[in-house]
């Protein structure tokens, strides 16, 4: 056999393998086993005088049709259709060395996150007495180990690592060096916005420094959704664990409340931040994405809710009672609507034509905007009457940011439904807008305390 033929055969086998790989009934080790068989068969046929091309064709043909093969594999390994969750399914494969190393890194990062929240305690800071300190620093315990995990996993360049570390440092210095009183509005605002700002810094590490790329940003958006779902699931499990711990130890007269409050809860939550990220990373190809599924389910329901509210508002004749809290509720409503939009976009095949779901989405976005515009109008008149406070400014700013996003999204969606624009325009608008969130979050953290003189 000439080397040319060898190469040709190798590429044919590689092609065949990639075809097999698409069958989720077949694992990598199954493909290894079948490939070994294929090579034996080819070798024998070639020895018998056939051309390698011919041998390859006959060997593949004798292997049987892929459909039949995967059906048989599926019948034997029905468990594979239920995706294997925690450990890599191919226990015999040599790839486990790499995944074991990854598991080790994850454990180190998770332990680092869990211990980080106990470090201040060594300096005499108590959870209940120094609650303010923990509130404003909350993001600084778990997110640096999380960013470190991504820096390791993505083999991030030193320059990017320095940038990420630098941004964390800026955040840490800002929240602790500013002399904001703990009962002030800016203190609370910082505690809320720093995690958001630093989460986007984690995004820089996630994208391996390639944060300008639309695709990487969309990946990070997807990651965020899945991470949140895993985190909530772990939190639910943690809740059950905590409940059992406290009840069964109580039975034998041991009070576990201090242990739970000081160790189990804070350390567990911090470690869960890293573990959730690892689960999303390890399972992104394995498990169906949950966020888009929930989005599909709740988009119509939220649309009905908003339309019903819009219809009921003039009918009751009661104007919206204009309190600051109401503005925050409507901010959250816009966040939910934006989330529904975002996760529908993240899972949508941008090439497919506009459908019913896109119209429902447009209805959702437009009705949310209408409601918000009414509320906003009332609020603005109120603010001009009473003046700006940090809280009102933040709530108003967020409302404007979200409203702008939704308004332009609605326009793009409409153009898309009418067939005048490609869906990717909407995608690009959303991924581009992430920068606005970053700028806003950092503004609230860094500028607000100064602008409002730590009020």
């Amino acid at each position, binding site marked *: 056999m000439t080397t040319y033929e060898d190469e040709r055969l190798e590429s044919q086998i590689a092609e065949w393998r990639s075809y097999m790989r698409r069958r989720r009934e077949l694992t990598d*080790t*199954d493909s*290894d*086993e*079948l490939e*070994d*068989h294929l*090579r*034996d*068969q080819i070798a024998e046929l070639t020895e018998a005088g056939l051309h390698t091309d011919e041998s390859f064709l006959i060997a593949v043909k*004798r*292997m*049987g*049709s892929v459909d*039949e*093969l995967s059906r*048989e*594999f599926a*019948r*034997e*390994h029905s468990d594979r259709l239920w995706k294997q969750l925690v450990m890599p399914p191919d226990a*015999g494969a040599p790839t486990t060395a790499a995944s074991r190393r990854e598991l080790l890194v994850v454990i180190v990062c998770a332990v680092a996150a869990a211990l980080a929240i106990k470090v201040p305690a060594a300096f005499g800071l108590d959870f209940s007495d120094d609650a303010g300190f923990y509130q404003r620093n909350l993001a600084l315990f778990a997110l640096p180990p999380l960013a470190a995990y991504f820096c390791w996993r993505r083999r991030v360049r030193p320059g990017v690592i320095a940038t990420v570390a630098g941004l964390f440092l800026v955040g840490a210095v800002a929240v602790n060096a500013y002399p904001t009183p703990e009962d002030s509005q800016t203190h609370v605002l910082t505690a809320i916005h720093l995690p958001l700002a630093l989460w986007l810094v984690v995004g820089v590490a996630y994208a391996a420094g390639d944060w300008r790329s639309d695709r990487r940003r969309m990946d990070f958006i997807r990651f965020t959704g899945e991470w949140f779902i895993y985190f909530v699931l772990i939190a639910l499990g943690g809740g059950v664990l905590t409940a059992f711990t406290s009840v069964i130890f109580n039975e034998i007269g041991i009070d576990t409340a201090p242990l739970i409050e000081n160790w189990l809860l804070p350390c567990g939550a911090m470690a869960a931040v890293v573990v959730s990220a690892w689960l999303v990373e390890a399972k992104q190809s394995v498990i169906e994405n949950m966020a888009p599924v929930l989005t599909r389910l709740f988009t119509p329901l939220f649309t009905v809710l908003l339309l019903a509210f819009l219809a009921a508002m003039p009918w009751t004749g009661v104007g919206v009672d204009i309190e600051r809290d109401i503005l925050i509720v409507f901010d959250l409503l816009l966040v939910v609507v934006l989330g529904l939009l975002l996760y529908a976009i993240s899972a949508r095949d941008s090439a497919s034509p506009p459908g019913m779901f896109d119209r429902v989405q447009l209805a959702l976005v437009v009705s949310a905007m209408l409601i918000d515009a009414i509320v906003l109008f009332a609020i603005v008149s109120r603010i001009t009457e009473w003046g700006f406070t940090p809280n009102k400014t933040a709530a108003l700013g967020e409302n404007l940011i979200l409203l702008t996003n939704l308004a332009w999204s609605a326009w793009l969606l409409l153009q898309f439904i009418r067939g005048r624009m490609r869906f990717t325009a909407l995608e690009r608008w959303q991924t581009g807008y992430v920068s606005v969130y970053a700028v806003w979050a950092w503004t609230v953290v860094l500028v607000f305390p100064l602008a409002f003189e730590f009020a």
Partner: protein
Amino acid sequence: MHIAKDLVAASATPLVLGILAEEDSYGYAILKRISELSGGRLEWSDGLLYPLLHRLERLGYVESSWHSPGNGRRRKYYRITDQGRTELAAQQAQWTTIVDTLHDAWRAAKSSGASPTSPLRAHS
């Protein structure tokens, strides 16, 4: 000669276990051996051997391990377990019973078919 699918399927397990009872082997060699033993008359779709081997492994009749036969490739070898040997013996007993019964029935049919005083034929 074409052998009905059901028969091929039914004989697959005792056949594979029998071959593995001779010596440890791997997929391709097992198929070669089947072809050799049947004089090429028993034909399988090659790929379908593997789900069968995996099923036998799950049932505990065989165990598998990866070895490298050299040349940088990895090959999965199968070895029969004690439980597999017990199963093989049981299946052998069943098959022997079936074969013997068939044999007797057909010999009886042959001899009675030749006889004009067959009780079945008397009615027709």
